[in-house]
Each structure stands twice: as structure tokens, then as C-alpha cells.
């Protein structure tokens, strides 16, 4: 039998105070897709960094074609034919597609760069991949999906035999995901071995030839193609069965006070006459495809983007919201989908982040911040929300995605927000932690908070929301009670079927 393309055995790696990996193993053959799953902090990224030469392993062996190898630098990994597409984009936005692909390996004419040869080579590569892209386009001007194609082209330009993709679809729309999957399938057919890291079970089912599960830095097990079964995988990942929970019912809050009433909300670019009501203690789901206007609605409500029409009533009284500070004063908190960029200060502590929106509460008469008081409140929320952190002085960047989300929630609870708008609350959070966030949102609703959840995952909407507002092309195309809703029905509304009829009428 021929040796495996890539074989990893007994890999361990420790950082000061943390054991990141312990005796991890997996095997990759050429022309197959190995999906690597595990919760955040399971050690996937560390493992990939070892394979791509960014970190050095403490123990264990790596074999390529049966030959033991040392991967000391990123350049060495490339020589061995191992290329990685990082989760965070690793491109130079100010350079062109071609310049990015061949950075460090530019063709030359004497002392000068051969720009024409560079563009020709890059265009050839892109065409071979079937990617419609101009090699001379500036990378910073491309969409995230196109940038990802550039990354893939770059990886393949090294004649990569092993391609590692870390959460490649987390920022892509559905059609873009399809394009990517098509590309992966054609690479597989050409014999490239692909290691695919993802949280998305749907992609896993479609792509995986094999699944390897990690948990807390340890190897849990590998499932072959015919053994792949999502509940089993989730159980391996979290080490416990998931509580699917009962779907909530719209009738639970139908007679409660209306806390937020939005009528006729419109913006210049997208939104047309968006209206809905949010009851006390209710979770209202916002479903729709990318670009339907869900995030835009939230941003228009809180005054982050200008409105051209529409009124907003909070607790039955009209409020004027011209900027986010007005929304905060009215008790509306918006938790952005982009936590790391817009929701948190990663270099600061849990206490700092918790107190940020309500710093007045922690400021003495002379203008000094009362650290002890802030710490006490932060501690209380840590306990209350069961945030996993060694202390309230821990830097937020060291927490997992789910726990970072809890810190954002604590920030808005500390600000006494009655209305919380969650934009993709579980994006980038692994399956086990998602369930915990769901339960937390339900508890907050039970305690009288009113919640809007914008989500692209239909199961999530159905799991959480009492009622579901569906949007398409900047309009509300339907509002469904959970008990009447199905994924199919929501998709009908989201894909304009119903909107077109209304438009014709």
C-alpha cells in the first residue's frame, strides 16, 4: 500500500501555562477531504500552525509520503507542498491579485520585476481554476469571497499537494459557498489533499471523506465516510448530548405590552417600509438571505445609518433616535455580528469591556473610575452568565468566541438595556457553546428583556424566536408565528415569492 500523503502522529504542544495539543493524530490521503472539527480552543488552529511552520511541535512526528519531515518555517511548508488559507485574510489589500499570488516569487527581467509575465502567469492560474477574476484588480477592492479565491489560487501556485482551509466559508454568502465547494471538488478530483476546518455541519456532510474530531487539545476520534452522522460528531465535540429544546410559541407573549414599535422604516439605499412590533419578554427572529436588509434595519433603528422615513416607539412613546447614543439612552442595545471589530476591545480586560457602555455608573464625583465597583459588577455578570474566564482582569482576546459574546451581553445588561438586538449571535461560535448562548437568550427574555435575533441559520431562528420576521430586498415579506413556521415557508418568503405577488398587486 502506498504511504499516506500526510500523516501526523503523537503531536503535542504546550505554551507557557497551557497545554494546547496532546498526542494528536490524523491521516490525509491524496484526493480526499478531511474535515477537522472541534470547539474553539480544541487545538485546531495550533495544529494547523504547526503544519504550516508557524509553530514548532514539542513531540510527535509528521510524515509526507512516508518520509519524516521537519517543518521549521512557512517557506519549508511550502516546499513540502503544504499550503494554508488562514481564517483571517492574509492578503495585501494594496497590491493586485497577481502581485499577491506571487509575492516573494516575482518573475524578473534583470534587476526589475517582470510585471507583464507576472500578470500572464497569474491570469493563467486563475483561468485554470475556473475563477473569473482579473489578475490586475486591486485585492482591496474585491469582495471577501473573491479574496478567498485569490488565497486559494495563491496556495495552489505553490503546487500545493496539501491545502489547509481554516473556516473558509464563515464570511461567504450561500452562492459563494457553492462556488467554493465546486472548486474544492475539482481540486479533490485532481488529487489535492484538503484539510477543511469548519463549524458548519451542512458543509461537513457534503464534503467530508473523513472527519477527525479534537476536543481540549486531544484526539477524540475519526469517522470514515459511511460513519458520518452529525449528532455523533457533535457529541464527540462537546462530550455531551445537545439539548435540542422545545421551540417557543408566539402565543406566549401575544398579549404582553409592545416594547418596541417600528413603523414605515426606510433608508435611501435599501429599506422600504419596514414595520414590526416587539413584545415584552419576546424573542423576535429576523430571517432572510444576505443583503435582505436585516442588519441594515437594526442599524437604521439605532441611528447608526440615516433613515429617510419611519417612526420608532419605545414603551408606547415615540422616541427620536439620530445617533447610537440616543438608542442607548432609550434602552436599545445592538450587539454587532462583528464582535471583534465593533463589539469588544480585545486588548482590554473583561471588567473594562463590561463597564464600557455604562462608565457613568462607575465614576465617582471627581471623575475617577471606581475600579473596585466595576470589578464587582463584572464579577457578578461573569457568574450570572457563566462566562468562563480565570478572572475579571483577563484580557478579552484570550477568551473563546462564546465567552467573548457573553462579555458583550454583560456590557449591555450593565447599561440597563431593555431591548437587545443580536446580530448573528452565534457566528464563529462552536456548536456546544451555541446551545449555551440560546439558553442565555431565553433566560434573558424570561426575565423581561425583549430581544431581536438576526440570524442566517434557520434552525437557530426556529429554536429561539417566538415570532419570525422575514425580509427580502429591503422589505418585510412576512411575519410568522413560530408554530406556523417551517424552514420551507421561511425560505419562500425570503426568496421573494411572496414579495413579487405583493409588488404586482
Amino acid at each position, binding site marked *: 500500500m502506498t504511504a499516506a500523503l500526510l500523516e501526523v502522529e503523537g503531536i503535542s504542544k504546550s505554551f507557557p501555562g497551557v497545554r494546547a495539543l496532546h498526542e494528536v493524530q490524523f491521516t490525509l490521503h491524496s484526493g480526499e477531504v478531511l474535515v477537522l472539527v472541534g470547539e474553539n480552543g480544541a487545538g485546531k488552529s495550533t495544529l494547523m500552525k504547526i503544519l504550516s511552520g508557524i509553530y514548532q511541535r514539542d513531540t510527535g512526528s509528521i510524515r509526507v509520503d512516508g518520509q519524516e519531515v521537519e517543518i521549521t518555517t512557512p517557506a519549508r511548508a511550502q516546499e513540502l507542498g503544504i499550503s494554508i488559507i488562514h481564517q483571517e485574510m492574509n*492578503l495585501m489589500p494594496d*497590491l493586485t491579485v497577481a*502581485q499577491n499570488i506571487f509575492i516573494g516569487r516575482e518573475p524578473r527581467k534583470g534587476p526589475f520585476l517582470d510585471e507583464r509575465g507576472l500578470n500572464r502567469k497569474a491570469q493563467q492560474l486563475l483561468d485554470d481554476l475556473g475563477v473569473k477574476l482579473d489578475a490586475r484588480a486591486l485585492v482591496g477592492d474585491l469582495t471577501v469571497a473573491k479574496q478567498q479565491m485569490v488565497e486559494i489560487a495563491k496556495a495552489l501556485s505553490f503546487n500545493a499537494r496539501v491545502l489547509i482551509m481554516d473556516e473558509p466559508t464563515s464570511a461567504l454568502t450561500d452562492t459563494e459557498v457553492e462556488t467554493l465547494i465546486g472548486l474544492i471538488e475539482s481540486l479533490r478530483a485532481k488529487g489535492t489533499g484538503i484539510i477543511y476546518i469548519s463549524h458548519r455541519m451542512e458543509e461537513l456532510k457534503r464534503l467530508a471523506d473523513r472527519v477527525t474530531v479534537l476536543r481540549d487539545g486531544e484526539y477524540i476520534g475519526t469517522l470514515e465516510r459511511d460513519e458520518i452522522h452529525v449528532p455523533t460528531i457533535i457529541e464527540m465535540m462537546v462530550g455531551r448530548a445537545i439539548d435540542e429544546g422545545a421551540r417557543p410559541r408566539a402565543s406566549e407573549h401575544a398579549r404582553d405590552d409592545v416594547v418596541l414599535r417600528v413603523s414605515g422604516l426606510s433608508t435611501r439605499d435599501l429599506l422600504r417600509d419596514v414595520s414590526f412590533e416587539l413584545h415584552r419578554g419576546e424573542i423576535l427572529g429576523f430571517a432572510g438571505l444576505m443583503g435582505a436588509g436585516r442588519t441594515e434595519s437594526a442599524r437604521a433603528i439605532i441611528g447608526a445609518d440615516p433613515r429617510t422615513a419611519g417612526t420608532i416607539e419605545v414603551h408606547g412613546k415615540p422616541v427620536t433616535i439620530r445617533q*447610537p447614543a440616543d438608542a442607548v439612552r432609550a434602552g436599545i442595545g445592538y450587539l454587532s455580528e462583528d464582535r471583534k471589530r465593533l463589539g469588544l476591545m480585545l486588548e482590554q480586560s473583561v471588567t473594562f469591556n463590561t463597564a464600557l457602555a455604562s462608565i457613568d455608573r462607575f465614576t465617582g464625583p471627581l471623575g475617577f473610575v471606581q475600579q473596585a465597583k466595576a470589578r464587582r459588577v463584572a464579577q457578578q455578570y461573569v457568574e450570572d452568565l457563566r462566562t468562563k474566564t480565570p478572572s475579571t482582569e483577563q484580557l478579552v482576546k484570550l477568551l473563546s468566541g462564546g465567552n467573548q459574546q457573553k462579555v458583550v451581553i454583560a456590557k449591555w445588561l450593565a447599561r440597563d438595556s431593555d431591548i437587545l438586538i443580536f446580530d448573528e449571535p452565534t457566528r464563529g461560535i462552536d456548536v456546544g457553546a451555541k446551545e449555551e448562548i440560546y439558553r442565555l437568550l431565553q433566560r434573558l427574555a424570561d426575565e423581561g428583556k425583549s430581544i431581536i435575533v438576526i440570524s442566517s441559520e434557520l434552525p437557530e431562528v426556529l429554536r429561539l424566536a417566538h415570532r419570525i420576521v422575514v425580509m427580502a430586498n429591503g422589505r418585510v415579506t412576512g411575519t410568522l408565528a413560530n408554530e406556523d413556521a417551517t424552514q420551507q415557508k421561511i425560505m419562500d418568503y425570503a426568496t421573494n415569492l411572496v414579495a413579487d405577488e405583493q409588488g404586482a398587486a
Partner: protein
Amino acid sequence: MSDTIQQTPAPAPSDEAVARERGKRADIWRKGLQQGLAFGTLIVLLVFFSIASSNFFTWSNISGILLATAVIGILALGTTFVITTGGIDLSIGTGMTLASVMTGIFAVNLGMPLVVGVLAGIATGALMGLINGVNVAFLRLPPFIATLAMMMVAQGLALVISGVRPIYFSSVPGFKGIATGTLVPGLPNAVLIMFALAAIAYVMLAKTSFGRYTVAIGSNEEATRLSGVNTRRWLVTVYTVAGVFTGIAGVVMAARLDSAQPQLGVGYELQAIAAVIIGGTSLLGGRGSIVGTLIGALIMSVLINGLRIMSIQTEWQNVVVGVVIAIAVFADTLRNRKGV
């Protein structure tokens, strides 16, 4: 990023249509406007001062402006590379002075041939740049701090070595000619040197791997490193190149004054940086323009010369230059807001 909703960030992400639309606009804005703006400003200034004073648009005045631009221009050319990597070099002003002094020491005090003096000046600049580069790339000092330190070291050394006295080149015939001689009739050599260096710098930035990595590092240093580029080595090279330009500026400065003035130098770095920014190089790195820098340096000296010819007080000249710099940086931030 303090707070989820206190900020008004970029438009909703991953909306393809929006991104594409924005991309197109950003492209035109970025590539053309800033440099067009700078060039337009230069033309407007030239026309304005020509109308305002009949003494302005004369060959002797224009050649005077060019001569006055030479030193700042050469400094600015070198520092364009540094700023394109996202760094800054504050040591070019006093570094230039130290280079002048070293030229004087070798050519006058030690009585060596002029060539040795000139090379000593350039080597001094290169060495300072090399040290800056090592401090930034290997010791990971922030460029601001590393070069601030070098600025003070160079200032101190220039004073110590010269004994706080100017060194006159009267014993070195021909030295003055480096700056004020006229290989091309009517045009001082210093100006020729500036244009020649600009041509070299242009080719270096646009056509060589050195230039490519300069832009790449400024655009995303980590990504460049992960692509297998030895970013540290290139950073050291960038600062050293800037140092070489500083050394040449020092020699030209000394030749123009026919003396090395150890007290001079402070403030030149800021004028050079201003010229770079006015010319459209982004302070955040990733975008650099040599032609822009040249135009930026010309704007500064045309402005000062024109105001002087109109008999406006020096104090007010400073105010005007300050406002121009603020406007230029504002244009830069506008551009970045539109960009990615």
C-alpha cells in the same frame, strides 16, 4: 473600537453589490484624486503667485525655488519608502546634519580627498538607517521611538564631533559645485541630483522587488511574512535606503552652504514628512508615490517662496504651511475612509 454602536463603522460587510460599488469608487478616488489634487494645487499656486507678483515667475526665482526644494526633496524621497511600509523616520533631519559634519571632518579636518568626504557623509546616513532598521525590524521598537532616539543621538553627535562650530569648506575647492554648479546651464546641480534620485527612487518603488515588498509590508506585514518573504531583512533595507538618501541630502546641504552647520537640521524631518503626505503617500502604509512626494516637496517650497515674495511675514508663512499640511492629511483620511 470602543463600543458596539457608538461608532459609525463601514457599511454592512459581505454585501457583494455594495462592496463592488464601493470598490469601483475607491479605485478611482485612490489612484487619481490625491495625486491629481496635489498636482492641481501646485499649478494653482504657481498661477496665483505669478499673478500676485511679477517677480515670481522668473527663471532665477524658479531655479531658486528648485534649489530650495533639493534638500527637503531628497530627504522626502528616502522617507517615502519608510512611510510606505507604515513606519516613520524622524532621524532624517539631524541625521542629515551629522552626515554634513562627517563630510566636513573627513574632507576638511582630516584633509582627505573630497570623494572620501562625500562617501563618509553618505556612509554615515546609511549606518544610521541600518541601525534604525535593526531597531525596528529585530528589536521591534516602534519606528517613531527608534527614529526619535536616532534623531537625538545624531543631533548630539553632530555637536560633539564638530565642537559646536561650523566646518567651512573653503579649503576644498569644487565642493560647492556639487550643489550650486551648473552642469545644465541655469539649473543648479543640486536640483539635477534631486531629479536623478527621484527617477531612481521611482524605478525602485515601482519596478523592483524591493519596492514591491515595501508596499506589501505596509499593506499587511504579517501576510507578507507568511508568504515566505523575509520581512525583517527588507525592513532593514528600507531604513538603510532612507539613510543613504539622508546622507546624500547632508552632502548637498553642506555643499549648498559651503559649510557643515551642526546646529541645523531639526524640523527638516517634519517638512520632508509633510511633503510625502501632501504627495499622497498613506501614513498608514501600503500606498506610496515618488512623483507625489516630488510634487509635495515643490508645493512646500513654492508656497514659502511665494509668500515671501508677497512680503508676508515668516510667522504667517508657518501658519499657511501648517494649514496646507492639515488639509493634505485630511484628504488622506478621506481616502482611507473610502478605501478598504
